[in-house]
């Protein structure tokens, strides 16, 4: 089963040149090394609101066992560890929070692969929805959620690319990342279509989700 690794990096001082420094360091040093070991970077985004200079990286691994192997090989790689002084010498301070996420049963990895293969002509905005799945009736909530995501996708107003449940942090949290095309009315995830019949039922178990908009960075495979 696919696992996703979310790395959230806060870069300080809060100035754009700090972000430039980080991107330079990451793309020329860390990213090639991680790639060599088997970390598959699928997305790199910057939030369009909230804390400044917060970057989210998302890596894909085919299974938890594979992830553990790759992680261990990176940890034992002297060449990779030799990169650390470069970060320490840079005029920036990084705070990185790494969270492993397991994918829910209804997650379809083919959707992520499909999105990775797309080269959009227009800029696309991504949306990160954080849903609190109730402990009681989680299975039902997941089922309703999967169905609603499907409705939104069918209406062409939302294209899911990833869904994962972090193994640390708030219990029952589910993160869904999708593409939210430009120019749509903002009141729903689908383009002007009426609410799907089971949305109301979903709202009974998941009344409200947190939503953040993500802008892909130039080196992000998901564009």
């Amino acid at each position, binding site marked *: 089963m696919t696992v996703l690794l979310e790395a959230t990096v806060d870069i300080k001082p809060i100035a754009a040149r700090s972000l430039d420094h980080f991107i330079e360091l990451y793309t020329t040093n860390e990213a090639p090394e991680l790639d060599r070991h088997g970390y598959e970077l699928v997305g790199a985004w910057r939030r369009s609101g909230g804390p400044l200079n917060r970057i989210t990286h998302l890596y894909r691994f085919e299974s938890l066992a594979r992830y553990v192997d790759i992680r261990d090989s990176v940890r034992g790689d002297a060449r990779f560890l030799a990169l650390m002084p470069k970060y320490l010498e840079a005029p920036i301070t990084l705070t990185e929070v790494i969270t492993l996420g397991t994918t829910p049963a209804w997650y379809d990895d083919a959707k992520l692969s499909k999105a990775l293969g797309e080269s959009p002509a227009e*800029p696309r*905005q991504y949306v990160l929805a954080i849903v609190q799945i109730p402990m009681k009736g989680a299975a039902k909530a997941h089922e309703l959620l999967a169905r609603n995501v499907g409705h939104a996708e069918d209406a062409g107003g939302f294209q899911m690319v990833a869904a994962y449940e972090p193994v640390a942090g708030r219990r029952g949290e589910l993160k869904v990342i999708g593409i939210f095309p*430009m120019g749509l*009315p903002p009141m729903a995830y689908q383009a002007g279509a009426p609410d799907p019949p089971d949305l109301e039922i979903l709202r009974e178990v998941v009344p*409200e989700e947190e939503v953040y908009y993500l802008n892909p960075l130039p080196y992000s495979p998901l564009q």
Partner: protein
Amino acid sequence: MAATSNGRGRGRKGVLAPQADAAHVEKVHEAEAAVDELEERQARLRLRARSIMGITGHAEGLPRLREVVQASGVGWYTLVALGLLVIVDQFQVFAFFIFAPEISHALGVSKSLLAFLIILRTLAVMLASLPMAAYVQTRPRRAQVSKVTAFGWSIATLLSAFVINIWGLLLVLLADGASTGSVQAVHTPLLVDSYPPEGRVRALSFYHGAGAIGSVVSPLVVGLFAGLFGMTWRGVFFAMGIICVIASVMALRLKDPGFGKFDVDKVQEEVRRDAGATSSVEADVNVELGFYEIVRRVLLIPTVVRLYIAWAIVGMMAAPFYSFFFFFLDERWHMSPGARSLFLASALAFSVPALAWFGKRGEPMFREDPQRLLSLVALTTALGAVALAVAAGSPFFVLMVVAFTFLFTSLSILLPGLGMVTLSVVPPNMRPHTAAMGGIFYAGLGGIAGVLLLNGIDRRFGTGGAITSMCVPLLIAAWLIWRTRQHVNHDLDRMIDEIVEREEIQILLGEGRHLPMLSCRHIDFSYGQLQVLFDVNFTVDDGEMVALLGTNGAGKSTLLRVISGLGLPSRGSVHFRGGEVTYLDAERRLGLGITQIPGGRAIFGPMTVVDNLRVYGHSMTRQRRAVDAGIDATFAAFPRLAERRNQLASTLSGGEQQMLALGKAFILKPRVLLIDELSLGLAPKIVGELLEMVRQVNTEGTAIVLVEQSVNIALSLVDHAYFMEKGEIRFDGRAQELLERPDLLRSVFLEGATKGLG
């Protein structure tokens, strides 16, 4: 209005959505055209205004001081009267110093207690100067304050003759100190406003020359009364008090000419002449700055702040100087008290011709370029530092005397030199505050730091070491003054632009022209050293709905902070309904109708929903009925909040918390509502509900500025959009046009993340 920052993409047309009515479109365009007109005229007028302010760019054609004085309409009287007052002001403190042993003996007060009383007096001088500045800030009452305080210190000097205990002594010293605050705060601003700019350096030099004469004359007068007439200390105080009263009576005809009679008023006349207008109309909002707003404003002027720091550094050396100086003369050169006094008096006497020279030489320099005046002051300060080093290390008595005399002489021009530059870059009604704060930096910050520092050096290296070490602060101050030169012209132009802009707006109002309700012009803003806004222009008209979009960190929230008063710009202006509110407190802007809903759930978590709403209401008015009506309106708009009225706000969902924050609009009913990141972290459906309410608020006449992270959301709602990137406005136009600009969107979303904010 200039459409974008840095002149890019000027001339926006059709800013309103097609559904907006034609009359409203025409009104908005008219407002923008009016502001464009202001921009062009302002640039033209700046040079002429500089000339009116006494800076012509060349030294030729400088009128003689006599001609300047005649042109002033007050003749020599103000100059002489203030000069006289600054002379007699020093009587009390000199007499106190000289008679310290006799006073100590008569009243049974220890030496250290007397020293403490002197410190209290100095504190009184500093602390009294600020309320005096506050008293004169709205009405020109500087002459009145000068006269009253002159009688104050005269009576204090007289009463010194009758003190019988420590409390009486404390009282007269405090009264003397407090009344001397006027010398600090109002004398030089009054002098500057009494004479045309072409003669101000000379007038200030004359005044400070009188101060130097006071320093020489005061001990002589004391000596004369005590020595020649054999008076006791009480008799001397009484006699000097009488002289002070006579001087105060002689100054009774002092008049305040008003703020900026020879500079601001003339510039305003020029603006009216240029526009062919005969009159102008004040904006219908009260935007007069209060005391703290003025202080904050003054401290935002780079020239003033740098010179204050230089002043404090000079104070480190100068304030405790005399204590070490007399010990040095005694220990190193074994000079008797009489010889020391004579030396000081004669050395100070050289300041008088030095100031006369400075007046003559400095005036054309200032006229040519104020930077040159600062260069001269920096140079003489540095030379003073060298002289101090020579004096401290000299093995020859004559060389020591010459070097110290040169030090006193060179430093005497600091006061008129820095005073002239500092007072020139602040608006006239803020000059008393500027002068008062200068004293606080000098004697308060610098003096205290200097005493602590030099005492330590003295203990380690002796008096000679302490005297020698004083070169360091002097050299640093000289360097700082030198470095300040680059800011002077910029600050001067900024002040001129403010005057010109205010008058132009008043002319347009007088002509009945329509101006934007809210207009930000050429805004620069920095967080410390990091500049985040660059030359931003932004307008909102009555009832408009405007979106402010852009990448994270583009400066959107910062611009809202500048508009609402939570942040003060380092350049540029904010006008609201024709009045300048750039430096007005956020609280007062709230009263005018500018309300901001900050990003990130602007609620008080530990309070209930209804208490949160009451807090919003009470920040504006204490009328319970009006607040209750606003709360009812909020609950009618958001029934979910009504259901949770007694629930703690922290327990609400994200959407409900944002609804609660939006309740502010229903209670305060602002003219313009600034909403920062309404949709942050909220589900689209909740955002949809909130936007409906925003629409409703707008329909009721409130203009909306919506800072949004989501283009989708903003464009579904507004007529007019601004797009910011790297602290600059990159797009200003019809909201729907943005969707036709994928280049811009791609640039903003993708490149924006890699290129930095600048």
